[in-house]
């Protein structure tokens, strides 16, 4: 009972207001995407008109396809590299250049995107690389692998190390112990890392604007140039579709982590 009595009315009010502030704008956006009226602010009844408009808009569809491809490719590479980085940082003990390594991994998490975007573009120009799908993918990988590394590293840090040590005492080689003991236990974090990398890539405007080339705009670049011209109901529909896609991704991620964490608990006493 004590835990409940600790909640004051002020606590409940600030929680309720805070959550309302976070969710109401998105909710309003979703509702208005089903508005039949061309005027964004006048309610003209329910309609799927703006969704039809989106699917007829070739440029938007192409941009969405480009964004999805970049997001899948960069999230996959980033998950691989980020997981390796996390393993090195949390299990590698001390090694030469470790401070530089962790600095390079943590700095992009807060680095203003205009700096990251500009610096990568200048590199691509100096290398004379053709800008498009691959340059954006490389740029997004560089940003998102740091998020993956942090997510996986914090899971590795909270893991009981005696499990993998027991496997090795019983004769497992280190790599084998990692693959058959550690990897299954950190799988939920790896899945969550991939999902996070995917949504971050899908979301990014600034870095993609710098690193893409003519004719290969991503969805945020298209949305941004439309939004600058004013509010259009079609944009509401696109945004709702993106939110729906991300919601599906989150649900899959949480189900996956539930499944493997219950596995993890049953594996733990072994």
């Amino acid at each position, binding site marked *: 009972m004590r835990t409940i009595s600790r909640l004051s009315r002020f606590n409940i009010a600030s929680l309720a207001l805070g959550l309302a502030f976070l969710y109401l704008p998105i909710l*309003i956006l979703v509702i208005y995407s089903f508005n039949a009226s061309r005027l964004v602010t006048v309610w003209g009844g329910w309609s799927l008109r703006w969704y039809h408009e989106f699917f007829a808009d070739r440029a938007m569809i192409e941009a969405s396809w480009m964004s999805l491809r970049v997001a899948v490719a960069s999230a996959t590479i980033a998950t691989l590299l980020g997981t390796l*980085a996390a393993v090195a940082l949390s299990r590698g003990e001390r090694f030469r250049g470790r401070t530089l390594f962790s600095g390079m991994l943590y700095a992009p998490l807060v680095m203003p995107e205009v700096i990251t975007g500009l610096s990568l573009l200048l590199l691509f120009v100096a290398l004379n690389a053709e800008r498009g799908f691959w340059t954006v993918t490389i740029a997004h990988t560089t940003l998102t692998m740091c998020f993956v590394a942090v997510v996986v590293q914090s899971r590795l*840090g909270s893991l009981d190390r005696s499990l993998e040590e027991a496997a090795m005492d019983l004769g497992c080689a280190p790599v084998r112990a990692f693959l058959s003991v550690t990897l299954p236990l950190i799988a939920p974090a790896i899945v969550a890392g991939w999902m996070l990398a995917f949504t971050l890539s899908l979301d990014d405007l600034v870095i993609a604007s710098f690193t893409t080339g003519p004719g290969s705009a991503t969805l945020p670049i298209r949305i941004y140039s439309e939004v600058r011209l004013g509010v259009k109901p079609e944009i509401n529909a696109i945004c709702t579709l993106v939110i729906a896609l991300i919601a599906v991704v989150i649900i899959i991620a949480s189900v996956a982590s539930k499944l493997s964490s219950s596995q993890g608990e049953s594996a733990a006493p072994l």
Partner: protein
Amino acid sequence: MSARRIFARPARFAAIAPYVWMVLFFLVPFGFVLKISLSQTAIAQPPYEPVFDLTAGWTAIRAAFAALSIDNFRLLASDDIYVFAYLRSLTVAVTATALLLLIGYPIAYGMARLPKRWQAVAMVLVIVPFWTSFLIRIYAWINILQHDGLLNQILLALHLVSQPVVWLSTDTAMYIGIVYSYLPFMILPLYATLAKMEPALEEAASDLGAPPGAVFWLVTFPLSLPGVGAGVLLCFIPIVGEFVIPDLLAGSNSLMIGQTLWLEFFTNKDWPVASAAAIALLVMLLLPLLFYERLQRRQLEEQ
């Protein structure tokens, strides 16, 4: 040799691939930014000179080095537009971070006091908006704040105002957008420290006769300072270089440094000045970045 040490050796090899990647795509590019910030604009492809050509021989490279100059930085320091942009970026970041702390703290505090089962739910509810697109969340606010948007409709219906209020293209709109976008980054580190705090400490203080205000300011708040520090850095650093939010929600008469960088690069095609602005922005953020890096490392490596 202990199992832990044997395990560490192959684990270190795991660093090679991400290490090479980050050196190539994070560290080396800064060298290019620095070099181009010392170059001059040119009507050429790429639009700056000198261009280092390693095949051109030693004298050509020496000449290229001699052509580098700090003119762009002189321009930044002497032109009011850039000086104001810097000052504005700092003011906006300080104000917005203070607002975020003021709004985020009560929410994080409320979360930490929920029953354990509900804390996990509340945390998911705070994280989910962070997963929805940044641009979409700003766009959602344009919908609400525009001239005949929902906010003005409600205010008019309640007879709180007699004419629609201009919200868009104002600093108010920009601060709403920043607070809205960065709130999860403030709440989560605050919640993490508040949830770890021993409730017995607060109870002891109030059992000894401290009024609730004193309990908060003498016990709770000082103990939550690590979380405050993390939240403040996590918000302050990116807000200083913010581009999208001021561009879409604030007026265009006073720009932040991220906006001038964008403008120089995309509109004026002045890559050297844009690079110089990036270097100057980086210098301004160096200290907070170092603090942040130390905090992050301590948090992840001393579990």
